[in-house]
């Protein structure tokens, strides 16, 4: 069924009583009138303002409203409770329908009217609400039911048609009957392409979350680092818990998600994203216990593009980690901003805060000082967080500054406050910590400017992260992990001296700190200080003899130092611990090749290509040694 087939003569979305139901097909947020505008009786041709019918009936007024904006969720098997598929269904719940629409708890839609016009907005105008209220006051009059519109049958299969590839979260995850909401990350390995080396681009993803009555919303990301696999393996149940994505990213800057009632976007070839072999898709589902144990299995339907994309995008994350909320504080503000270095279009926004977020606002100031509103949510609700995709992307010229201001309420009066009495809350990823993020899907007007935009934003982000860890280190000066993380960010920023100082700070607290020894070894190696590098890396190997990476890094330093025998030994030990380390295969092969062992080099270059098919230098090395062998 296409949502386009739903009647649109009137507008209303509703669902009942806090269930995960966000109803209605994707429509612009401008509410349509409850009654068709009548022509000006004076004959001027201007439509009159819509008015509330004097005697509304189900058949003439209410059925179209409900079937259009409620029934897409409130049907048998839908995400909302109570099926609204007939007059009797609706009349049985008429009182509550009037209540939840009057108090605006339904439809669930957070943004205030005004700043942006968003795809799939669920808003009601006052005339529509009053039409329902009057209908209920007057006794839910049926009218001529033979003339009432009928609800369209709900879609039973894939809404975008048969996918090119269907993936599943696999074995069911058992959602407990009771307790707090669960954030579960399901890891789905991307299968290799049918023909090796041929890139695949995904035009659209349709997410089928399983039982929509327990799945509140879902977000899909992609991990190229392998870190989510590690977390998945550590948890005996399918997936792993948590609100953070552990390194998974929006693929090629594109936002992918599922919200009840939201129709999946068919996408376009121009805006497709690359599905990289050996990557992992990470589906994070917000699950709400229902009172009984519920098995959760989700499916992804991927539709491939016929050609590579032409309009690249970037995900940018404005955020603030300067969150410090004393118990009882009812209005604490944090801010962030970013000035775009090229002309861009913002296609979508995803605001994020936890339970203490109260009000969020985003806007842009253009170079001519004019202000452009982007998003305003007066009453933030963590449970209804969503992506807001502009009907018309917001164009910002180079030099425009995007602003965000998040306000938090850590008082006992905040009904969302998870702590009673309130406790001191700071920045962090757990649901009892707080976050302030605004994720933007941005396209540069000129696709050639993507790299410049990416690099510029990355500088800002790294600077923010370094500032965060500097603050954390001031708070916990003896924490070697914090100091080592600060060192890593300074290293990424190219601030070698600051990185060395941070790593040495970490080693001052813990001389055996693995990360600090490895990273300081790498920094020393980069500076040509090979003896000092080898010293730190030997210490790292002594601390963690069963971890592959210290062996690999030590082997690299030894090779550069002119100690190939010992380097080979540590490459082999690294590979014995993790045969998938393509870099270790490659570097071992280089060492063997230098010693004239071309067959050994061939074997390990081949393994490097096998494990790292996207790294061009591995293939180049393999071709070279093959050519040498043929000679």
């Amino acid at each position, binding site marked *: 069924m296409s949502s386009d087939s739903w009647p649109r003569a009137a507008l209303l979305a509703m669902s009942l009583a*806090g269930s995960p139901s966000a109803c209605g097909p994707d429509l612009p947020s401008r509410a349509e009138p409850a009654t068709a505008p009548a022509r000006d009786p004076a004959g001027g041709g201007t439509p009159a303002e819509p008015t509330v019918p004097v005697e509304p009936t189900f058949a003439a007024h209410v059925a179209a409203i409900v079937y259009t904006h409620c029934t897409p969720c409130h049907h048998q098997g839908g995400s909302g409770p109570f099926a609204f598929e007939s007059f009797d269904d609706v009349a049985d719940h008429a009182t509550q329908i009037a209540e939840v629409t009057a108090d605006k708890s339904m439809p669930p839609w957070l943004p205030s009217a005004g700043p942006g016009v968003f795809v799939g907005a669920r808003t009601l105008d006052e005339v529509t609400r009053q039409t329902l209220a009057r209908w209920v006051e007057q006794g839910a009059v049926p009218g001529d039911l033979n003339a009432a519109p009928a609800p369209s049958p709900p879609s039973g299969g894939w809404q975008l048609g048969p996918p090119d590839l269907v993936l599943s979260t696999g074995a069911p995850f058992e959602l407990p009957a009771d307790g707090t909401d669960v954030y579960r990350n399901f890891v789905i390995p991307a299968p290799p392409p049918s023909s090796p080396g041929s890139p695949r681009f995904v035009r659209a993803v349709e997410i089928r979350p399983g039982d929509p009555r327990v799945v509140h919303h879902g977000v899909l990301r992609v991990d190229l680092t392998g870190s989510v696999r590690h977390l998945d393996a550590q948890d005996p149940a399918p997936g792993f818990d948590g609100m953070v994505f552990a390194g998974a990213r929006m693929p090629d800057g594109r936002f992918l998600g599922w919200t009840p009632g939201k129709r999946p976007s068919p996408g376009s070839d121009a805006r497709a994203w690359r599905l990289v072999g050996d990557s992992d898709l990470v589906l994070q589902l917000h699950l709400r216990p229902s009172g009984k144990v519920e098995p959760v299995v989700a499916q992804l339907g991927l539709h491939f593009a016929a050609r590579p994309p032409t309009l690249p995008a970037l995900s940018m994350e404005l955020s603030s980690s300067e969150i410090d909320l004393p118990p009882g504080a009812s209005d604490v503000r944090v801010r962030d901003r970013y000035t775009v270095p090229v002309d861009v279009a913002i296609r979508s926004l995803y605001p994020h805060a936890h339970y203490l977020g109260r009000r969020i606002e985003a806007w842009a100031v253009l170079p001519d000082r004019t202000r452009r509103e982007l998003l305003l949510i007066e009453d933030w609700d963590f449970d209804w967080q969503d992506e807001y995709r502009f009907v018309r992307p917001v164009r910002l010229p180079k030099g425009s500054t995007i602003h965000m201001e998040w306000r938090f309420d850590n008082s006992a009066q905040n*009904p969302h406050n998870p702590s009673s009495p309130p406790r001191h809350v700071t920045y962090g990823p757990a*649901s009892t910590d707080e976050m302030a993020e605004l994720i933007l899907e941005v396209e540069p007007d000129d696709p050639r400017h993507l790299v410049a935009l990416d690099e510029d934003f990355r500088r800002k982000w790294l600077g923010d992260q370094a500032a965060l860890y500097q603050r954390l280190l001031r708070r916990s000066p003896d924490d070697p992990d914090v100091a080592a993380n600060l060192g890593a960010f300074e290293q990424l920023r190219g601030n070698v001296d600051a990185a060395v100082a941070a790593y040495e700070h970490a080693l001052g607290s813990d001389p055996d700190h693995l990360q600090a020894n490895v990273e300081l070894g790498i920094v020393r190696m980069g500076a040509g200080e090979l003896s000092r590098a080898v010293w730190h890396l030997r210490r790292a190997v002594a601390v963690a003899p069963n971890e592959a990476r210290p062996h690999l890094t030590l082997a690299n330093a030894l090779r550069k130092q002119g100690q190939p025998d010992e380097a080979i030994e540590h490459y082999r030990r690294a590979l014995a611990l993790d045969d998938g380390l393509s870099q270790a295969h490659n570097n071992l092969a280089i060492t063997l090749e230098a010693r004239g062992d071309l067959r050994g080099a061939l074997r390990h270059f081949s393994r490097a290509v096998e494990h790292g098919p996207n790294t061009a230098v591995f293939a180049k090395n393999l071709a070279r040694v093959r050519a040498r062998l043929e000679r």
Partner: protein
Amino acid sequence: MTRWGLAASLGLLACGERTEPLGAPARSSIVDLQGTPHDPLDPAVPGVAVLLFVSTECPISNRYAPTLRSLARQWVDDGVRAWLIYPDPDDDPAAIRAHQAEYSLSLPTVRDPRHVLVAQAGARVTPEAAVFGPGAVAAAYVGRIDDRVAERGKVRAQASAHELRDAVRAVRAGLAPAAAGGPAIGCTISDLR
């Protein structure tokens, strides 16, 4: 807390019968799952009675199933009679049996399709509870189970006020329970058509 109207309730116990307004539905419309009339507030049965208004469809009501099970276990030990009351006429015995199997609810159950108990307790939504002292006609407590649902659609991580549990303790002790700190939030019990 103050002593509640013990004398009045004793008087009712002695009387042993109720008067119903003219035209009000008969108490015989309260039926168990076999269709047999069964009055949870039968004054001949001693002890405190707790009516738990629930629905097969309401997600808030369903989410309280583990809480209701836990409370009921405690009440069995305390001699408190807890009843599940299904006020929606569309909740037929087969649907209720399936619902109770699904949510592991095994309390004594009646249907109240003509809302006799709804009116007597003053219940508005599911889930909502009413506590009656021994033989009492009027509820000593009617309202939410606890404060976990703060507003419609806004659920706290955990309840901080356990008003129903405390009300039952108070009534058992012969005290007037405190009023709930906020309204019961749930699915409106629809007016009968």
